[in-house]
C-alpha cells in the first residue's frame, strides 16, 4: 500500500538529503578551494572562504616538481588492469555460484568476504617477501594482481547478485540450442548482465584508484600511482597545505569526473538487489 507523502515531509527529506550531501562533499570542496590559496592564506584563522586572491601558483609548483602524467598513467593502468583481470575471473565464478550452487556456496561467498576484514598491514610482510622473491616490487603487473585480489570478493559478490536476477531458464534454453559453456557465458549471460558488469567495473575502478596502502608500500619510482603523488606533498614538519591540496585536487579530478558522468550506473550498482 502506498504511503501518503505530505509536502512538508518531502521538504524535510529533501533538505536532510541535501545537508548530508553537502557535509560529505565539504572536505572535497575545501581541498579544491585551498588549492587556490597561498600557504599563508591556507592556514588563516578565521578560514577564508572566497575573500582571497586566487592563485594558480600551487598547480605550477606541483607541475614543476612532479611528473603528474607518469603517476596518472600508472593509476589508470593499475585501476583499469586490476578491474579487468578481476572481471575475467569473477564472471565464471559468479556464474557457477548463481546458476549451479552447491550446499557450500553461501559459505564460500561469506568466506571470500571475510578476507576483506583482515587489516592489510597484517599481510604486509608475506606479500612483500613474495614480491621480492618474484622480482615484482615496484612493477605495475605485480601491483595489478594485488589490487585485483583485494577487490575480487566485491566483484564476485556484485556479479553474483546481478546474475541471480537473470532467469536460469534463458541459459537453459541456450544450452538446449547447443551452446557450449563458454558460449553460454560469453554470448548469453554477459550481454544480459552488461549494466551490472558496467557498474561493477566502475565501482572497482574507483576502489582500485583510491587504494593507498599497497600502492604506497609496494612501489618506488616506476609503478607509483597518484596515491604516492599525494603522499609526496604531505609533511608533519612544514606547511604545505596549499600545495598538498593542489596535488590532491589533481589526483581526484579524473575520478570525480568519471563518477559524475557515470553516477546513474554507480547508484544502480550500489542499490541493486536492495529491493526484492
Amino acid at each position, binding site marked *: 500500500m502506498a504511503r501518503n507523502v505530505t509536502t512538508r515531509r518531502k521538504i524535510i527529506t529533501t533538505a536532510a538529503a541535501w545537508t548530508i550531501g553537502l557535509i560529505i562533499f565539504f572536505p572535497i570542496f575545501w581541498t579544491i578551494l585551498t588549492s587556490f590559496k597561498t600557504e599563508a592564506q591556507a592556514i588563516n584563522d578565521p578560514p577564508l572562504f572566497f575573500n582571497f586572491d586566487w592563485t594558480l601558483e600551487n598547480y605550477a609548483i606541483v607541475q614543476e616538481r612532479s611528473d603528474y602524467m607518469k603517476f596518472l598513467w600508472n593509476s589508470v593502468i593499475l585501476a583499469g*588492469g586490476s578491474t579487468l583481470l578481476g572481471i575475467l575471473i569473477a564472471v565464471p565464478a559468479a556464474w557457477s555460484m548463481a546458476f549451479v550452487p552447491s550446499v557450500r556456496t553461501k559459505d564460500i561467498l561469506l568466506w571470500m568476504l571475510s578476507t576483506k576484514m583482515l587489516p592489510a598491514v597484517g599481510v604486509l610482510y608475506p606479500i612483500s617477501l613474495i614480491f621480492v622473491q618474484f622480482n615484482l616490487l615496484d*612493477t*605495475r*603487473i605485480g601491483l595489478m594482481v594485488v589490487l585485483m585480489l583485494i577487490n575480487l570478493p566485491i566483484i564476485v559478490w556484485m556479479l553474483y547478485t546481478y546474475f541471480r536476477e537473470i532467469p536460469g531458464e534463458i541459459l537453459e534454453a541456450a544450452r538446449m540450442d547447443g551452446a557450449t559453456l563458454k558460449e553460454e557465458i560469453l554470448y548469453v549471460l554477459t550481454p544480459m548482465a552488461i549494466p551490472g558488469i558496467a557498474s561493477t567495473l566502475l565501482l572497482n575502478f574507483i576502489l582500485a584508484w583510491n587504494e593507498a596502502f599497497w600502492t604506497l*608500500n609496494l612501489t618506488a*619510482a616506476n609503478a607509483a600511482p597518484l596515491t604516492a603523488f599525494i603522499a609526496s606533498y604531505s609533511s*608533519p614538519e612544514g*606547511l604545505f597545505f596549499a600545495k598538498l591540496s593542489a596535488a590532491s585536487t589533481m589526483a581526484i579530478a579524473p575520478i570525480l569526473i568519471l563518477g559524475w558522468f557515470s553516477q546513474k550506473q554507480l547508484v544502480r550498482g550500489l542499490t541493486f538487489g536492495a529491493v526484492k
Partner: protein
Amino acid sequence: MSLKSTLCAATALSLIAASGAFADSHSATITIATVNNGDMIRMQGYTDTFTEATGIAVEWVTLEENVLRQRVTTDITTKGGAFDIMTIGMYETPIWGANGWLVPLDDLSAEYDVDDILPAMRGGLSHEGTLYAAPFYGESSMVMYRTDLMEAAGMEMPTAPTWQQIRDAAAAMDDPENDINGVCLRGKAGWGEGGAFITVTGNSFGARWFDEDWNAQFDQPEWAEALNFYVNLMNDYGPEGYATNGFNENLSLFNQGKCGMWIDATVAASFVTGDDSTVADSVGFALAPNNEGVEKRANWLWAWALAIPAGTQQEAAAKKFIEWATGTGYIELVAANEGWANVPPGARTSLYETPEYQAVPFAQMTLDSINAADPTNPTVDPVPYVGIQFVAIPEFAGMATEVSQEFSAAYAGQQTIEEALAKAQAITNETMEAAGYR
C-alpha cells in the same frame, strides 16, 4: 568489435603497459627515498648539477615522514632493494647499523672531510664508532619568542631560561582579548610529535624513561613534576585544544601572531622569519629551558641523514651522491643561488665558521642548541640507552606512541595526570618484559 575481443584487447593493452616498467631500468640510475621538507625538495632541484658532473641519474621517491618510515623499514627488512639511498633519522640509524642493514660510511674521500661533521650529529648517526648515515641537515629545539611582546611587557628573555622564567614570560605576554597565547607547545599524540616534546621536558626536570635495568620510571616524582608543570602552563597560557597541536599547528599559530613563545625544532626558525610569517621581524631565540638546578635542558637532537641499504647494486654511485649532497660543495651551491639562510643547517662545523652564515639571525642559537644536546648522556641519572627525545631501541616507537596517547588524554582532561602516568608505567614495563629486556 565483440565483447570478447574488447576484453582481450584491453587486457593485452594493460599488460603491455605494465611491462613497460621493466624497460625503464638504467645501470647508472640511483633511487632515493626521502621526506617532504623544504631542504630535501630544494636538493631535488639541484639533481641535474650532480648528474651533469657524474653521469649518474637520480630517481626521487618523496613520501610523508611516517609513510616513508614504514616503506623503508619494510624494504630493508625484506631486502627489497627498491632504494639505493634512504633518508633516515637518528632513531633508525644506530639500530639498523647494529643489525648490519646499512653500508658503513667509513671510506668516504678525504675531500669530503668527515671530521667536519658536528660531533653530536656524528655520534648520533654512528654505532660503535662507525658512521652509518651522513647528516643532510640537523636540528635541536629552542625557544622562539616575540621580541615586541616581551619589550611591551618590559621583560627580557635570558639566553638560557629556566622553566619558571618561561612561565613568567608566558604570563606577561598572554593576552586573550587580542587572541595571543602566552606559549604554544606540542601536545599531539605520537612518539615524534608530543611524545618527543614531553620526553625532553622530562629530561629537563631530571626524569628518565628507564633506570639502568630497563625498569620504567614513570612512577618517579620527576615525571609527575614535569607533567604537572606542563599541563598547568598550557592550561593557564596555552591555546585551546593544545592536546592535538603538533609542529604544523603551532607553526601556523606562531606565524599568525597568536603565540608569545614557541619551543620547538630549530629548523622552524627559518619558517617563522620567512615570507609566510606575519611576525618575521620580531622573533628572538633562546636555549630550551631547564628546571632550576637541573643540568639537562629540554632540547632534543635530530638529523635527517642519507644511508645506503646493504645489498644495493649501486653502492659506488650512492656513495658519490652522499658525498655530493652532504658535502661542503652543496652548501656553497645553495648559498650562491639562494642565500645563506637557505642552506641545510646543523650538519657541519665549517658552516658555523663561515662569516656570511654567522650573520643569519638564528645560526648561533641553532649551533648552541645542538652542542647542548648529548645523545649518549641524555638524562641527569644514568640510562642504558642512547637518544634524547627517543630511546634507540626498536620497541620504542610503538610504546612511546601509546604513552603519548595517554598523556594527550590527560592534557585534554579525559583523565588525571596520575592515571596517565600509571598507564605509561604499565605499558612500558609490559612492553619491555615482552621484549626480554627485564
